[in-house]
């Protein structure tokens, strides 16, 4: 679970976040430009806060006082974007295996077949990256992220850009992922219904700060 | 007014009579001095000098380069132009002589004996510079001497052929080459090298510099006069001798 308290400043923009994940899935909602993506970038390590600390499962990945700043590739935090970003020079299976190979065997959380089954990727394995629909690519992107055996999964508007039919197809997959893997997840979106479906702890981001709203039910 | 200034020099050239002389690189200093002298005495004449390897010059003249006088470092290239009908055979006059020498950088202790038994290849390290042996006169003479002295084969891969004799001289001056084969007249000009040996004149074809008016030059009155000057004038001859040429 993620716990953080930090401040990040860039030009005019000031991001100040203090939060502790209470549930397995944390949903972040907010208008464009409110700082959601910047927040995620600070968590994965693409950006460094000026001040504060970030802890994942009680382990510190960033602390400006203690001069700790774990590089991105060591944080075990996987990121799924709106765009699948599949590696174009590899086919689907190679994309998945790439992630799997980055994790030493003793730390592997999931097996290849397990993830392929979970996301129904079997018929897609031999396809080239450009031979996929938006929904298929996104499932593969999620599968790839899972195969890297992360300690935390970040999803930055993963369903934005897909039509409603596809969203309705993929949401159940996300729910299965949540239930089967028990991985902590942070899910950024505009759509409250997605978060409701996934039974998320919801917070709001507004101009760089987090506000919690009381649960509605 | 600026436009007028632009036209001024070309107008003065139109008035002057121009002579274009294509001469072997080894003649650079001598011919330049003589040309300057002549221009002083004949102010309405302008002499344009083009120096280079006689091979390169001959090829240019063959291709149509505007030349009034050709002053070659060997007979072969003069005959070549006669063959290509750029020069009439009766215009050709063998004029100067030269010697072939071996040079080394000043600090070198190179000594050589011009006999086949002398192990020339072993007597120096690195490369030997001379003109391209297939075309440049000094290279051709050098090749003849090296063959005659039975030294050529043992020098395999160590001979650097340059475009003309002055380039070879420059390489030795820079100590890029430990040894060079140039004309005696070139060696005398340079203070950065020394003559470490002379090739006997029977080891190569006689080094004769023929002089001739080209087909173009015959019709150029000033060129005819200058050609005559080069051959007959006492001061001109003195300059050639000063530089070490034989008459």
């Amino acid at each position, binding site marked *: 679970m993620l716990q953080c308290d930090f401040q990040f400043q860039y030009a005019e923009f000031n991001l100040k976040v203090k939060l502790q994940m209470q549930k397995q899935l944390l949903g972040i909602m907010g208008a464009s430009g409110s700082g959601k993506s910047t927040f995620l970038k600070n968590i994965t390590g693409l950006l460094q806060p000026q001040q504060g600390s970030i802890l994942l499962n009680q382990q510190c990945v960033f602390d400006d006082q203690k001069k700790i700043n774990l*590089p991105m590739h060591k944080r075990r935090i996987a990121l799924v974007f709106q765009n699948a970003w599949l590696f174009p020079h590899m086919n689907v299976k190679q994309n998945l295996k790439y992630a799997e190979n980055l994790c030493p065997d003793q730390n592997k959380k999931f097996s290849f077949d397990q993830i392929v089954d979970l996301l129904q990727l079997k018929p897609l394995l031999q396809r080239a990256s450009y031979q996929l629909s938006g929904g298929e690519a996104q499932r593969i992107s999620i599968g790839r992220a899972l195969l890297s055996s992360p300690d935390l999964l970040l999803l930055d508007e993963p369903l934005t850009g897909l039509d409603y039919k596809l969203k309705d197809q993929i949401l159940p997959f996300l729910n299965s992922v949540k239930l089967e893997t028990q991985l902590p997840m942070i899910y950024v979106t505009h759509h409250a219904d997605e978060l409701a479906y996934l039974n998320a702890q919801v917070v709001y981001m507004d101009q760089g700060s987090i506000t919690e709203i009381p649960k509605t039910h | 007014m600026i436009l007028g200034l632009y036209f001024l020099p070309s107008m003065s050239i139109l008035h002057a009579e121009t002579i274009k002389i294509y001469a072997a690189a080894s003649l650079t200093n001598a011919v330049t001095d003589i040309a300057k002298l002549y221009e002083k005495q004949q102010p309405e004449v302008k002499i344009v000098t083009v120096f280079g390897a006689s091979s390169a010059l001959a090829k240019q003249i063959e291709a149509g380069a505007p030349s009034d006088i050709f002053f070659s470092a060997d007979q072969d290239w003069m005959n070549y132009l006669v063959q290509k009908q750029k020069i009439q055979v009766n215009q050709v006059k063998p004029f100067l002589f030269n010697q072939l020498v071996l040079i080394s950088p000043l600090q070198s202790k190179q000594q050589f004996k011009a006999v086949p038994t002398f192990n020339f290849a072993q007597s120096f390290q690195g490369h030997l510079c001379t003109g391209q042996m297939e075309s440049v006169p000094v290279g051709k003479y050098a090749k003849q001497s090296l063959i005659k002295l039975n030294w050529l084969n043992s020098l395999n891969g160590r001979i650097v052929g340059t475009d003309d004799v002055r380039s070879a001289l420059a390489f030795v001056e820079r100590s*890029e080459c430990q040894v060079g084969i140039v004309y005696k007249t070139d060696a005398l000009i340079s203070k950065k090298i020394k003559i470490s040996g002379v090739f006997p004149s029977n080891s190569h074809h006689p080094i004769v510099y023929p002089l001739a008016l080209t087909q173009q030059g015959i019709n150029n009155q000033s060129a005819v006069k200058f050609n005559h000057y080069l051959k007959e004038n006492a001061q001109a001859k003195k300059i050639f001798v000063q530089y070490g040429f034989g008459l």
Partner: protein
Amino acid sequence: MLSSEEWSALYLSVKVGFFATLFCLPFAIMLAWILARYQFRLKFVVEALLQMPMVLPPVVLGYLLLILFGANGWIGQYLNQLGIQLAFNWKGAVLASMIVAFPLMVQPIRLSFQMINQQLEQVAGSLGASPVRVFSSISLPLALPGILIGSILCFSRSLGEFGATITFVGNIPDETRTIPIAIYSLIQQPDGEQGAMRLVILSILVAFGALIANAYILQNYQRKLGGKDAAM
């Protein structure tokens, strides 16, 4: 079919071109990467220096090489003591070709790197790939078209390299007399035109062969990546 001198010129040209391209590659890839990914204050100075060989007359470059790397040169004299000789040597021809062709190799590789969407590299990093691994498994393969183009340009430029080469390493048959220099020598010789023409045809064939190979490889690679890519 070819005389021994012509074989020698061909062999030398290909040998010099091959090694020049090979040795340029690591430096070109490194510099292209730095220029594509990093901003720094004196970047414009680096870019200007990079362009110099394309702007300076080749003879000037050759002369500078002679001053630096000649047997008596500033650097050359020390290399000489180590037994490394570059002047009047095919290795010097390689160096001359490397210098003149280097900017031609850097540019396409740099463009290729610039065209790679950095999100891909970031995703790889988030999956656990170290920066070195990201470079070798993602950036480099995706930059392959640029690397190929750069290599072909370097090789071709080297095939045609004349001014710097002849000034620095001279015109020595079997050692530095590459095809352009051989053509140049033949033109100086009485009735050398025929031989020169044969070499001209030979150089056209070699250059064309290299370009065909390049186009073929590129075409196959593009097919592998598919029509529309998010990456490029």
